[in-house]
């Protein structure tokens, strides 16, 4: 009887000690020392893993400087004038229209990645906005709760683990990588609402060249307008705007592929 009692008591005592043991809180149990901080820095998990491969950095920086000059003396003024003269509701319609044009290719890329739900949502958005939304001017699909995230060929290639390649700073276009630029060029070529290289609809010229030039120009101005505040901040705050833009671009792309 006493042996049983002792055994039960020991087991209960052992278990209660475990129950009341506080998990070691690394950061609050002692004052931070150099060793603690080194451990914290080592255990820090980045938001997304970014690999910076920039073997053409010298020439990229030269192109960046040329882009900056072009932007400061011309393009920035065009974007700021656009913002000043066109009211926000009208700019929103333009953005909706331009965004709608790229939805078919986004849907194709979603399906290519096996993201069926997103592909269907993207395609439905295109159909609804093109019809009920008067050629894409109004985002009726979003008001009905249909959401999607944009996918392009660069993201599809990244999804299948194709390496991003080298960082590129392209004239006028800006930051990209060998993978993303190739993806962008192919998307542009095969998009039926652009160059339509695959002759979808039985006709190579589904839309005429003037439409392509007009929408491409409008797209550039709209994009630059959306980046006015961000670029102003980078120019004012950054020690090395090229390095800031390079990292931000690569991190954003890595995140988009992860989604």
């Amino acid at each position: 009887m006493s042996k049983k009692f002792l055994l039960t008591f020991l087991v209960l005592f052992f278990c209660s000690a475990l129950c009341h043991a506080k998990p070691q809180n690394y950061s609050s149990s002692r004052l931070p020392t150099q060793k603690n901080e080194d451990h914290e820095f080592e255990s820090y998990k980045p938001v997304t893993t970014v690999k910076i491969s920039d073997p053409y950095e010298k020439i990229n920086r030269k192109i960046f400087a040329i882009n900056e000059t072009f932007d400061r003396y011309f393009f920035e003024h065009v974007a700021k004038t656009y913002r000043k003269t066109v009211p926000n509701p009208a700019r929103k319609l333009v953005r909706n229209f331009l965004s709608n044009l790229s939805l078919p290719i986004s849907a194709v890329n979603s399906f290519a990645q096996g993201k069926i739900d997103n592909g269907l949502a993207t395609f439905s958005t295109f159909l609804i906005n093109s019809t009920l939304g008067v050629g894409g001017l109004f985002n009726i699909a979003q008001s009905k709760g249909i959401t999607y995230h944009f996918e392009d060929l660069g993201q599809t290639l990244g999804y299948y683990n194709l390496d991003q390649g080298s960082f590129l700073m392209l004239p006028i276009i800006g930051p990209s990588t060998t993978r993303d630029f190739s993806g962008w060029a192919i998307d542009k070529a095969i998009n039926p609402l652009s160059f339509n290289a695959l002759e979808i609809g039985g006709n190579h010229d589904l839309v005429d060249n003037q439409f392509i030039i007009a929408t491409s120009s409008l797209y550039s101005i709209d994009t630059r307008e959306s980046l006015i505040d961000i670029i102003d901040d980078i120019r004012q705050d950054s020690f090395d705007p090229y390095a800031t833009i390079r990292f931000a671009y690569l991190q954003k792309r890595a995140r988009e592929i992860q989604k």
Partner: protein
Amino acid sequence: MIKKTLSKFILVFFFCSSSIASSMAFAQSSEESEVKIFIENVGNQIINIANEKTLSEAKKREKIINEIDKVIDSEWIAKFVLGKNYKNLTDLQKKEFIQLYRDFMINTYGPKFKNYNGKKFSVNEVEKQSSFYIARGEFLPKDSNEPILTDFRVKKKDGKLYVLDFIAEGISLIETQRSEFNASIDNEGAEVFLKNLDSKVKKLKTNKK
């Protein structure tokens, strides 16, 4: 008799295991709640200051800077953003950099928050990652229904919570700065970098936005 003792032992063992598991889960979820409340308070306090109509722009700027200074661990962030280059600085340069970086952070990013006169800020989820927490939130601007995804990386130090990073739409502030500062030091050297940081801070302090 052995069977009875064994079954009692198994019963007691499972009781204690479930107590440990539930107490640990409770401790974790209460820490995550603490982080959620902390970040929501910080976010909404800044929105309240930005929305305050009776305050001048300069006063708003000053109040927001003070709020941010209270909640960030600028020393930790300073050491993080320099990475390997921090270890190569002299003790005097380390001291100088930590002070300059704090002034740079609060005077650069503080004033930007006065434009955050949005509707609401809320935290949807808190995730523990080793010794840090990621609070995933969204900020709903006044003139749009599209939320801006804003996450915060948080750490507990000496029983108090501190913000280490601000992540907007997937882009981390301190990781971007780390890349930028190290590129600058690699190209120009630490001495020139510290001089540039010093003149930037002086310019920010005299700049009234």
